[in-house]
């Protein structure tokens, strides 16, 4: 049977991404830069899974990252599990935390939800900062024998691919419709049979799982953890900036936002060490003002407008829209 090129087309992007991830260390002078970018992509995408889809901004997103890091770090430091199992435990631990967090918070709306999650972030930081068993404020180091940077990098790449694929399926399923309904009109969503609390909880748990994996992987690579870095609210703020820059609620947005923001930030840091944050801030404000729906949203609008113009000029007045997320 002759292969149909149209049916194979959707596979082109994942295959290209897999090849790119495989060869990236050869062109990036090592695994460090691609690892960090992938780590940020997972953080931004997992933030997008909850905040983008439900419209609730989780200012405590870094808590999942930090707790995942601590669980993974403790297991690795005490040789209680292989690094792979420790990373998985970090993700599962954060997912469990997200489940607990969802009980009080998913019943809150708007600013109340945002404030509650920010408060949880502060509370968790204070707990870890004073908890001697987990190293308190100074944190602890992880002596990892036979550490192979390429090994950590490929695990990170697999996690990033799984994270993006999960977001893809979340937006293209009944789950995605439920999330759209909740975000646009929660009361109406309940009136048509959508269990809003359940869907929000599931989204938060999946978001927490991937952020926890990112945290544990970061600790595997850095081999050090302390509360100041693990629960730094700037991690959440960066995730928000990346998602806003790339495109909220889109699958590809956090990939573009994460790569650009970290890549540009890193370049500016090396080029203008004293000015880079100011320049980066100006760039972000400029892009968000020019493209409030992010790079993907702006591109989608551009191509939709072009298609409608073309259809109208061909005499087809249909203005059907494609709501599918990129």
């Amino acid at each position, binding site marked *: 049977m002759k292969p149909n090129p149209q049916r194979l087309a959707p596979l082109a992007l994942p295959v290209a991404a897999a090849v790119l991830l495989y060869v990236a260390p050869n062109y990036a002078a090592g695994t460090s830069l691609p690892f960090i970018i992938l780590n940020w992509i997972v953080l931004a995408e997992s933030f997008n899974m909850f905040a983008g889809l439900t419209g609730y901004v989780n200012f405590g997103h870094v808590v999942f990252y930090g707790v995942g890091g601590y669980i993974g770090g403790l297991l690795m430091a005490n040789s209680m599990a292989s690094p792979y199992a420790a990373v998985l435990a970090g993700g599962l631990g954060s997912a469990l935390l997200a489940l607990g967090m969802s009980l009080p918070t998913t019943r809150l709306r708007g600013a109340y939800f945002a404030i509650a999650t920010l408060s949880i972030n502060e509370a968790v930081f204070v707990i870890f900062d004073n908890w001697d068993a987990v190293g308190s404020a100074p944190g602890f180091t992880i002596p990892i024998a036979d550490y192979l940077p390429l090994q950590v990098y490929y695990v990170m790449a697999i996690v990033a691919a799984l994270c993006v694929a999960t977001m893809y399926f979340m937006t293209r399923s*009944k789950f995605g*419709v*439920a999330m*759209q*309904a909740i975000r*646009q*009109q929660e*009361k*109406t*969503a*309940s*009136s*048509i*049979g*959508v*269990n*809003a609390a359940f869907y929000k909880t599931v989204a938060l748990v999946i978001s927490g799982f991937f952020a926890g994996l990112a945290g544990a992987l970061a600790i595997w690579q850095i081999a050090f953890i302390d509360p100041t870095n693990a629960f730094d609210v700037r991690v959440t703020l960066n995730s928000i900036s990346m998602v806003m820059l790339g495109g909220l609620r889109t699958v590809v947005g956090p990939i573009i936002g994460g790569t650009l923001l970290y890549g540009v930030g890193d370049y500016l840091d090396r080029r203008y060490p004293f000015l880079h944050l100011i320049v980066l801030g100006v760039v972000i404000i400029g892009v968000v003002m020019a493209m409030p729906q992010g790079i993907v949203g702006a591109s989608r609008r551009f191509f939709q407008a072009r298609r409608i113009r073309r259809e109208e000029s061909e005499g087809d*007045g*249909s*203005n*059907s*829209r494609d*709501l599918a997320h990129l």
Partner: protein
Amino acid sequence: MLSDVNFSLAEGEILGLIGPNGAGKTTLFNIISGMLKPDRGKVLFGGRNITGKAPHKISRMGIARTFQIPQPFPEMTVLENVRAASMFSHEGGKGRLPKDPAEICGLLGLGGKKMHEPARRLTGGEKKRLEVARALGTSPGLLLLDEFAAGLTVAETKWASEMIRKLSKEFGLTLVWTEHVMRVLMRTVERVVVLHHGSVIAEGAPEAVVKDQGVLEAYFGGTSA
């Protein structure tokens, strides 16, 4: 606040629920649809006690509602609004209502190109139709219509009345309709329940209720010509 509100509905019946502002009509709808939990009392649907159940559970049992101020999913198209509703209805669908979301849109006069328009771009009257279309998308057995005719033109109001009758007669749907546009409601419904200060003050055929002294006093503060 509601107290001493007791009435039943026959399958396929159209019941009018009227009363002055603040009588408790929307509160009653909120209680039936699970958006408010009553302190006391019971709501029975098809012999099942549904009191205090979550709105999504009640919807899945076959009770749909519209809102006084239309609340569509604004970024979805008309068709996507109805399709979303049909996705989450599990236990409904016993009636003769169409199952195809596009057919439901057509039934409500929202077919053709209108189906593909985002809900936020619809006129007030079209949004009211979409409220009903979305509710029908859940394949309900009982439909609660909250001021469906308010703000509609004369022609639209006539159409609304015909549509409500059609839903009952052709598709076997049971309807409870609250309305301030009294003339159209009285022409359409078979029975009326009158609420005042949260209590039922009259119940019966429309022609009997309009002559009820208690109802006249509730509406006009005294007798009427």
